[in-house]
C-alpha cells in the first residue's frame, strides 16, 4: 500500500490519453488500492484517476458517499452507488445537463463551474475484470465524468464556464 504522488498541472502527462487495461492482474488490484489510499489523503476528494498519479491506464475510482453522508440537511442531488472502481469506463447514455463547481487534485487553488450531463449510464469493469453497469445522476454523475475526462487527457479547466455565462444559465433557466 502506498500513497502516490499526485501530478499537478502543467505536468504534460495529465494531457496524455490513457490506454485501455487488457491485463486484469495483481498489479492492477494494487493500483486500485493505491489510488484509493491516495484519494483519501486528498482534501475532500470524491474521485481519482490513474493518469493523476502518472499511470497512463484507464483506471479510476469514484466514491461520493462521504459527501452524501454529511450531516447537513441539504445534500447534493445524487445517485448513490458506493465505491465505484471504473476500469475502461464508457458512457453509453447521457441525458440532461447540470452545472456544478469543480476543483481537482491536479489543479490546486482553483475551482470553476462546469457543465456536465445530468444522468449517465456507464459501463466499466471492476478490478477483477467483471463487467458492471451503473445508472448515475447529479453529483455522482459529475464525478464520473470528471474522472473519465482525466482518462482522455482532459482537465476541468478545458470546460470551465465564464461567471457571466453561468449567470445567464442559472438566472434564465
Amino acid at each position, binding site marked *: 500500500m502506498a500513497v502516490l504522488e499526485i501530478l499537478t498541472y502543467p505536468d504534460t502527462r495529465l494531457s496524455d490519453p490513457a490506454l485501455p487495461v487488457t491485463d486484469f492482474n495483481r498489479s492492477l488490484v494494487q493500483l486500485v488500492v493505491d489510488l484509493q489510499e491516495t484519494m483519501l489523503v*486528498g*482534501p*475532500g*476528494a*470524491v*474521485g*481519482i*484517476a490513474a493518469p493523476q498519479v502518472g499511470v497512463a491506464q484507464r483506471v479510476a475510482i*469514484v466514491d461520493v458517499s462521504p*459527501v452524501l453522508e454529511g450531516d*447537513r*440537511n*441539504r445534500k*447534493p442531488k445524487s445517485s448513490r452507488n458506493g465505491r465505484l472502481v471504473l476500469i475502461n469506463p464508457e458512457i453509453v447514455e447521457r441525458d440532461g445537463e447540470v452545472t*456544478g*463547481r*469543480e*476543483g*481537482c*487534485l491536479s489543479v490546486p*487553488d*482553483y*475551482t470553476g463551474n462546469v457543465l456536465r450531463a445530468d444522468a449517465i449510464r456507464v459501463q466499466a469493469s471492476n478490478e477483477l475484470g467483471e463487467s458492471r453497469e451503473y445508472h448515475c445522476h447529479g*453529483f455522482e454523475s*459529475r*464525478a464520473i465524468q*470528471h*474522472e473519465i475526462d*482525466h482518462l482522455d487527457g482532459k482537465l476541468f479547466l478545458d470546460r470551465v464556464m465564464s*461567471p*457571466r455565462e*453561468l*449567470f445567464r444559465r*442559472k*438566472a*434564465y433557466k
Partner: protein
Amino acid sequence: MSNWYMVTVVGHDQPGIVAGLSRVLSEGGWGLGESSMARLGGNFTIMMMVRGEGSASDLAQVIDPVGTSMGLHVHIDRIQAELHQHPEPNVQIRVYGADRTGIVADVTGDLAGAGLTILDLNSEVSGTGDSPVYVIVIDGFVENGADALDSAVQLLNKKGLKVDVEPIDILVG
C-alpha cells in the same frame, strides 16, 4: 520589491480595449494578477491587479496613451495583494423581482444579517422597458450552511421577491 496596484478602467465600449491595455502594460514591464471585466449597460469596465517596480504615476504614464486614444477613465490605487487565497463559496442565491428601488439593499441587507458573506454578485435589469425585471445571482459563504438563510429568504419572499438558495457542493476529483 514590486508593488501591487488596482487599475480600474471605465469607458465607452469599443473593440480592442483589453488588448490595448494589456499590451502597453506588458511592454512597460508590468505584470497582471487577477482581473475582472464586465460590460455594464453598454459601458466597458475592468479591474485589474497590476504589479511592477514603479510608482502609481509611472503606471499611469504607461497606460495614458491607450486611455487617451480610446477615451477611457483610468483610476489607480495602491493595494495589498493576496494571491492564492480564494475563499470557496458554499451557497448560491438567485433572486428576481419586478425592478424597484432598493432591491439589492433589501436582499443583501437581509442575507448579511443571516450570516452571508458575498463573494461574487452579478445583477441585470432584464424584462422589457415597461416591466423591467431585476435579476441577481450571488455566490457566498455562510458559516452554518444554506439552512441558516431560510428565515431571511422567507422574509424576502414576503417582500415580493423570488429567492432561491442552493448549496454549492464543490466536486474535487
